Structure formats: C-alpha cells, structure tokens
C-alpha cells in the first residue's frame, strides 16, 4: 500500500487534469455559503 501511494505521488501531476473542476466546485461552495450567510444575517438583523 505504501509503495502504491508512493507511486501515485511520484506521478508528475496527479489529478491536475481535473484542477479546473475542483476550482469550480470550490467556487460554488463559497458562493452558496456566502448566500446562506447573507440570508441568515438578514433574518437576524430583521429580528433585532
């Protein structure tokens, strides 16, 4: 198993062919989180 892991990490660019996909996923997570926080803050401020 250790050898296997070593072999994978020895690849020049493991997973780099999906880098754009990962970045796009992160953008969606950040955008959705910020929208939710804004909504919750809005509700909180209204209550106060």
């Amino acid at each position, binding site marked *: 198993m250790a050898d296997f892991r070593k072999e994978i990490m020895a690849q020049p660019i493991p997973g780099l062919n999906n880098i754009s996909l990962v*970045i*796009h996923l992160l953008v969606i997570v950040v955008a959705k989180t910020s929208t939710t926080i804004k909504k919750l803050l809005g509700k909180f401020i209204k209550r106060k």
Partner: protein
Amino acid sequence: MKKNNSKTAIIIPASNEEFVIEKTLKTILSYINKHDVYLVDDNSKDKTFELALKFLPLNNVLSLRKNSGKAGALNIGINKFKLTEKYEYIMPIDADAVPASQFLENILECFILNKKRKLIAVTGKVIGNNSSWITAYRLWEYEISQNIYKNSQNATSTIAVCPGCATVYRSKVFKKIHFSRDTVTEDMDLTFEIHRKKLGKIGYCSKATVNTQDPGTFRDFAKQVERWYKGFWQCVIKHNVPWGGQKFDLEVALLATEGIFNGFIVLALLLLSPVIIRFRYELMIYPFIFDFWLFFLPSLLYTILKYKEYRMMLYIPQFYFMRLFTGLIFIKSFLKVLFGLAPSGEWQRTRRWQISERKLWLSPSLD
C-alpha cells in the same frame, strides 16, 4: 396556454432542416404567438421553407438565395425583421431545439430578479434526448458542464458560452454587436464579444430548459466535438485570451489548461505505451486512478440516479473511452486552429435524426 409574449422575439436560422423544423415549430407555437416567431431559411434545398410557411405568417419567414452561414442568416434576419426596434428581448434558437413551455417565463423572471446585476443575457439549461449510448454520454457531459462549470461561472459572472439554442439576449446587444462569421461557433464568439466590450453580465437559469438533438452516431459525435473545440480555440485566439485583463480570461485559461492536460496525458500514454507496457505496465493505470474514481465515476453515478437511467451503468467503459477520446480531439483542434486549418462561417452541424417506429432515421450527410 398560448401567450402573446410581445416582449420577446424568437428567431430560427435554418438550412436544410425539414427533418426537425415541423416538430420545433409545432412545439414553440403551442405556447408562443406565431407573430413573435421568425425564421430565416438559408438557401435550403429541401422543404424547410414550405414547412415554415405552414406554421408562420409570410412576413415572418425570409428565404435567402445565397448561403450566408448561420451567423449571417441570424444577422440578416434580425435586421430585416427590425427585431431590435420591435422587441425588448431576442432569442435566437437552433432548428432542432425545443424550449420547455415555461422557458421564457423562467428566463424573464431571472432578468427581473437579478436587476442589480444588470444582465444583458440569460442562458438556460440544455438537455439532450437520450436515445443511444452516445446521447447518454452527452447527458452526463451536460450535467457536469452545466451543474458545476456553468453554476460556478454564473457566480463569478464569467459564463464562457451562451448556447445557440438556449439564450435570451436583451435586444440592445444586437445594436452594438453582431454574430460573427470568423469562427465555427458563432454563439461562443458572441459571448466572448459581450465580455470584451463589457456590454453587461450573463446569467444562468437552470430552471429554464431546452431539449436539443445530440449526434446519433459516433462519427457525428466526433465531428460535433471537433467543431466545438475548434470554435473554442478560434475564439481564444481572436479575442486574445488570456491577455485581456478580465476575470473572464482567467476562466477561459483555466478551462483550456484542464483540456490540454487531459489531452496530453492521453496522447503521452498512447505514444509511450509500448515502452511503458514493456518496462512499467502499472504506470499506464496511475494517471487514471484519480480521474476515474474521484471524478468520472461519482459524477456518472450522480447523473444515473438523477435521470434514473440505470442502463447507463452498462456503458461505463465506452463512456470512459469517450472521455479520453475527446481529450485527444481537444489537442487536435488546437493544432488545426494554430496552423490555420479550421474553416469558419459556414453551416457546420451534425445530421438531424427522427425516431419513427423504433428506427433511427438520419438526415442526409452535409459533407
């Protein structure tokens, strides 16, 4: 219910579309007033013009005697019918595309709800008709490209392409810019132009769906993908990406980087496979471990569960082959565009098909 949606004009460029135009017009006219639907027949040799006249008023159908290409037909139609003066919104649509009955309402709602963003265009979600393993593969591609990439691009206002079959533009766009014949993907070219000229932001509405035809054979699929990729590279070069200093440049550069890596990994493994298999056969597997288990399989399972298309499980090997194959086409298209071997401006589309009595009928080849 039929609505007199006089705010929006629908314009259909058509060249030899007798296979699909009747169904498209019938569907559109079941919920849009015929006076708001226009068709430009670009020198068709078949019955496209006659079929259009069966459904639309004579004043809404234009027949061009000289081939003008899709971009040319759209520009001529928008000008001749004076759509920018008569309407607030314009929706160019492919002859094979069938928008859902709520499409326009959803898109117009998106324009209104996002007033602060000052949207200049809103694009909907494209859904293919799943009828073979090739179209099933496209279903997965659409899910990934729209659910992940387009949603993310929407959040950062960097939508890279407004599909020709699913976008509504504010008509003022066409007072400033026009569809160009410089590339084979006039819709992507127009999107790049909107970003470059800073005409406004582009939104994405996943609730607004359009059904479109996907290629019926492997050859047609390969041709279509090659055309899209050639168009992408033509647009990159024409609009000087990534040197434009806009957020949009970063987005396109990211997409291109991913495509290039995909293609080169496959190409390198193919070229080096005799050596690798002889000495270190396990090296052939490693590059695909991340790609297959962490990206491909989970996203495919998601699509299968979403559409309840369990037979797609049988096609996993073919689908993965297609993924690697399209990576190679990306590199091939790049080289063709770089060496000036890619055409532009002409009608470039795949053959249409009809399903009748469980048989797949393909329209004649366009070659």
